[in-house]
């Protein structure tokens, strides 16, 4: 009788391996409803999670300040345009942790309605590194970042029309100004 409880405990421990500690991705999914791991091939093995646009600012802030793995460096913010998807405009944030050398990729995708620009909350106020990259995404993809301190075009001139990296922006050559027709050539 006295020896029973410890032996029970010993058999339990040998039968069931303790569950692995939750990864950062699990914690994000648990914390921010609506986030999930996209079914897509990430050939670089970087853990990836997609977060709803309304949570992106809290998610990035949480990963930076509160997550057990402190992701204290914002490596990159980049955009992409997938016209065939339901939410064609995607913004990707890559974060790095100086203490564990772990990286995490957070994605956020939005649709645009009619001629309006797609809208994502800006993280430039909580992380200054995102200031220029968000301006670049605004410039190149026409994604509007709400509460951005200085949302202007950055690489193209201010009077540029369209957003060059959208898939519907033509890649074609510039029209030739002084085009010489066969009749005028002589």
């Amino acid at each position, binding site marked *: 009788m006295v020896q029973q409880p410890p032996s029970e405990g010993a058999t339990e421990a040998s039968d069931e391996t303790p569950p692995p500690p939750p990864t950062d991705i699990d914690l994000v999914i648990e914390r921010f409803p609506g986030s999930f791991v996209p079914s897509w091939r990430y050939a*670089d093995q970087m853990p990836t999670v997609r977060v709803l646009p309304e949570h992106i600012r809290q998610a990035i802030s949480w990963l930076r300040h509160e997550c057990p793995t402190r992701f204290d460096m914002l*490596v*990159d913010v980049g955009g992409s345009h997938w016209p065939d998807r339901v939410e064609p405009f995607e913004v*990707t944030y890559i974060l790095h942790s100086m203490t564990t*050398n772990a990286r995490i990729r957070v994605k956020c995708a939005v649709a645009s309605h009619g001629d309006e620009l797609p809208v994502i909350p800006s993280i430039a106020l909580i992380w200054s590194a*995102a200031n220029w990259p968000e301006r670049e995404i605004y410039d190149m993809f026409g994604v509007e970042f709400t509460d951005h301190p200085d949302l202007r075009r950055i*690489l193209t001139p201010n009077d540029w029309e369209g957003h060059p990296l959208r898939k519907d922006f033509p890649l074609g050559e510039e029209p030739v100004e002084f085009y010489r027709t066969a009749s005028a050539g002589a």
Partner: protein
Amino acid sequence: MVMLEDTRTESGRMVLNMGPQHPSTHGVLRLMLELEGENVTQCIPDMGYLHTGIEKMSEARNYHQALVLTDRIDYLAPITNNLSYIMACEKLFDVGDKVPERAQVVRVILSELTRIASHLIWLGTHALDLGAMTVFMYCWREREQVLDIMENISGVRMMTSFMRIGGLVADVPDDFAGLVVDFVRVMPRKIDEYETLLSRNPIFIDRTRGVGVITRDGALEYGFSGSCLRASGVEFDVRVNLPYCGYETYDFDVAWSKEGDVYARYMVRMREMRESVRIIDQGTKRLLALKGAAIRLDDPRITFPKREKIHSSMESLIHHFKLVSEGPVPLPGEAYAAVESPRGEQATYIMSDGSNMPHRVRFRGPSFYNLQVLQHTISGGLIADVVACIGSIDIVLGEIDR
């Protein structure tokens, strides 16, 4: 310098345009400075003068063709751009860990040679901005030696495009190792020579020490990387923290410093050059030990058949034709690959939709992030410190504007 029409604001401050053609802006960067006497009260950088649409162009080329565009991003360090692009492609084709060792060794040697060449340009122009003319000439002399090595392997001095998916375009010539050994032998003494001109030079120290200080927190807040980050007290180097190309097997130290001022960034880069020489030295020994080994992966999906086989076998000819006309086709997916370029974390992020052309290619230029901090560092400082700050961040506008 061009002054605006309305040069005096209501508060009696002067608005001054520096650049885009000012020599100290290292390319075509335009700074709008608001001055009160000699003090800068506000700085608004304006860029995009060098925007070439490389990312857009890459979307209309197959995976082999887009390589030549990457040379032009950071035109002072084409090899590291090549490398990050090629590494992203290799991850996308799932061959990242199968690249032959000899190719990896050559990649490391070339990356480090590029780092020295790029740091020499930085040192020369930075010193020139601060009024030291001689260092510029000395740096150009040694950079010439690196460019000669590049010419020896590829026939081109700068835009080598020497990497290929799965290895290198060709083996290095027999005299390559000899040239590198010569360079390794002279370089440490040359670095001593630059240091005698600058490290204890009172004018240089006055212009750089305590100027443009960026703290550790500030560096992380603004997404710094590379030497600038290490000079602010963060020991982060992609070669050590996320090793690639077998960097973990080389013996070298990461140069870093706590001060975070212009002088600290100078000292970190000088030490980095010495460490690069050490890595090249170890690499040359490995290169000689691996003489005659394969330099390219043999994977029919991505690598071209051998020239002799094209002449003798119909299948190889068709295979070659398919790879040239259509190009290699990866599975749909994404891959991010980062290398430590002379300026910081240079990365390529490729998204594929399963066609023969990338759906999206993003190049993360370290200068783009490093330059963000400039407007905050120089506001409140003297106008003479502006050139010291720009020089110490070591920007390349080709990479910022892409």
